[in-house]
């Protein structure tokens, strides 16, 4: 176990140290102490190392992660795991706006709540939020899966493309072009797999599925009020 203390080590050195690890390295377990809300902690990691952040972080923690496992034992600021390519990011506390924004792959687990625009413009990432998500979550979401064990705020899935949304609790309102859809066996399987990987205690049958009505895929004057 290697340790980096942000009370005495600056951000550049923390990230440079983690980024310098190669897949050949045998130093695969790292701990970061005293993040105290710092921004851009553990960003751009592209080897399968494991990083535990003991405390809360600021903006863009685990940004563009590609293969690492990053576990934040605290809450995270805006844009956690933004544009993640692969790997796993786990947040024990809450996440601020834009969690998992534009993520292309990997798994983001938020054990608390996520605020607005969770999964905005997501492009393949899987996100499991054990609490609730705020307004405009999955806005313009293209691909991937958003699972919410709690409730969803206003305008869920606005201008949605092909991402799949599963919500166990209530949905305050659906955004433009987002509709409830039939839950088929393939969806229940997918959900069961994600819940298991996220360590979330919920039954797939308790969820409802939401997806794109695909009415905005080609401009149609009769839908102009939805633009």
């Amino acid at each position, binding site marked *: 176990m290697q340790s980096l203390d942000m009370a005495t080590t600056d951000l*550049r050195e923390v*990230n440079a140290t983690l980024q310098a690890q190669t897949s050949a390295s045998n130093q695969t377990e790292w701990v970061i102490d005293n993040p105290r809300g710092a921004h*851009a902690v553990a960003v751009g990691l592209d080897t399968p190392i494991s990083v535990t952040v003991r405390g809360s972080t600021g903006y863009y923690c685990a940004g563009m992660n590609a293969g690492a496992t990053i576990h934040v034992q605290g809450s995270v600021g805006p*844009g956690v795991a933004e*544009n993640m390519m692969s790997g796993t990011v786990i947040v024990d506390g809450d996440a601020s706006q834009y969690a998992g924004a*534009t993520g292309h792959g990997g798994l983001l687990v938020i054990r608390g709540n996520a605020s607005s625009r969770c999964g905005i413009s997501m492009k393949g990432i899987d996100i499991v939020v054990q609490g609730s998500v705020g307004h405009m979550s999955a806005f313009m979401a293209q691909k991937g899966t958003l699972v919410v064990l709690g409730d969803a705020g206003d305008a869920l899935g606005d201008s949605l*493309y092909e991402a799949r949304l599963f919500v166990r609790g209530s949905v305050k309102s659906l955004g433009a072009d987002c509709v409830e859809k039939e839950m088929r066996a393939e969806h229940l399987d997918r959900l069961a797999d994600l819940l298991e990987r996220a360590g979330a205690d919920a039954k797939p049958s308790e969820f409802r599925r939401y997806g794109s009505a695909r009415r905005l895929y*080609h401009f149609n004057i009769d839908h102009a009020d939805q633009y």
Partner: protein
Amino acid sequence: MTKTPTTEPRQSWTFSREVNAEIRRAAATGIYDIRGGGAKRRVPHFDDLLFLGASISRYPLEGYREKCDTAVTLGTRFAKKPIELKIPITIAGMSFGSLSGPAKEALGRGASMAGTSTTTGDGGMTEEERGHSEKLVYQYLPSRYGMNLTDLRRADAIEVVVGQGAKPGGGGMLLGQKITERVAGMRDLPVGIDQRSACRHPDWTGPDDLEIKILELREITGWEKPIYVKIGGARPYYDTALAVKSGADVVVLDGMQGGTAATQDVFIEHVGQPTLACIRPAVQALQDLGLHREVQLVVSGGIRTGADVAKALALGADAVSIGTAALIALGDNDPKWEAEYNALGTTAGAYDDWHEGRDPAGITTQDPDLMKRLDPEAAGRRLRNYLNVMTLECQTIARACGKSHVHNLEPEDLCALTMEAAAMARVPLAGTDWWPGKGQF
């Protein structure tokens, strides 16, 4: 019997044939006109400025013999690896998707031969472009199509696009015809659907957040790569100052004549300021912050000739960027395809339906047959030639003004032909020592 004279049929200036045609088109389709390119209306431009040249009070340099340097380094403020260019002319961001793969390759070939950089655009980085561009600027856009860690680190610089001159404050729209399997794959979209690009970044809003986004990009790329911030010419003084306060190494400023792959015509023609009017406020912001030349300013939007380049530099830019002109150099809107332009209901020079993907010149298309019409090697050579000509023209003017480096051109080397240009460029009306607003800046 004498015939009573009659009046001539008179068209309305307000309701001109063009205006009426647009009303009929709108009434028939119910959708606004979407097109590519930049503003087509006449606006005050570099043509309205002239250089004074040397005579007795100043001494010119000898053409071809005495050195007139054109090199420019971008990103000297924070980046460990600034971009060194041989010429002060770069290729602006144009997306793969709006352009074909061979067209991106041709841009890379031409720019590399001329010693300058190309820029990706909205839609990710292609092998054609990375492979053939010695220096490649990777655009970081609201859509984040194709954005990934590997390509970010393969880039030579990162350009955070906040806006562009054709549509400051707006997003984009690429119609389904161009969302082929390859384009869709790079953008994670279903094949064949209209693609709407966001107007704001998904994970930050405002300069205070942008500062943190720039920090993240630097941390991901080891503080090596220059971070450009591109803004549309709307409020250039404030936007330049805020880009600098957010930590930009380079500010890219795109005036309203700057092109787009596709957006609403009403946006292109009615939002934003002419390029000429944007430069001085931006330079003023840099000067007020004490960072003129330390944070470099790249100006784009309607640059066509070496004279335009020289004038932009004289007004305070460090370099210029070309998009539309580069496409024309490759072969866009070439009259040799006139019959086909006519078949599309247009004419060479006026073709701007780039989003429809039926470009006879094979540049703004994803149609495999049309794409074959562009030979990337030959087109690359044409772009190289054109860049060389512009550079030589710029040098010629700079030498005539007694400058051993094109960056030593100054606003005082210029005069204006019109009151409008004088006011916008803040240089004297020809034959006077006055411009409208003088003394108020």
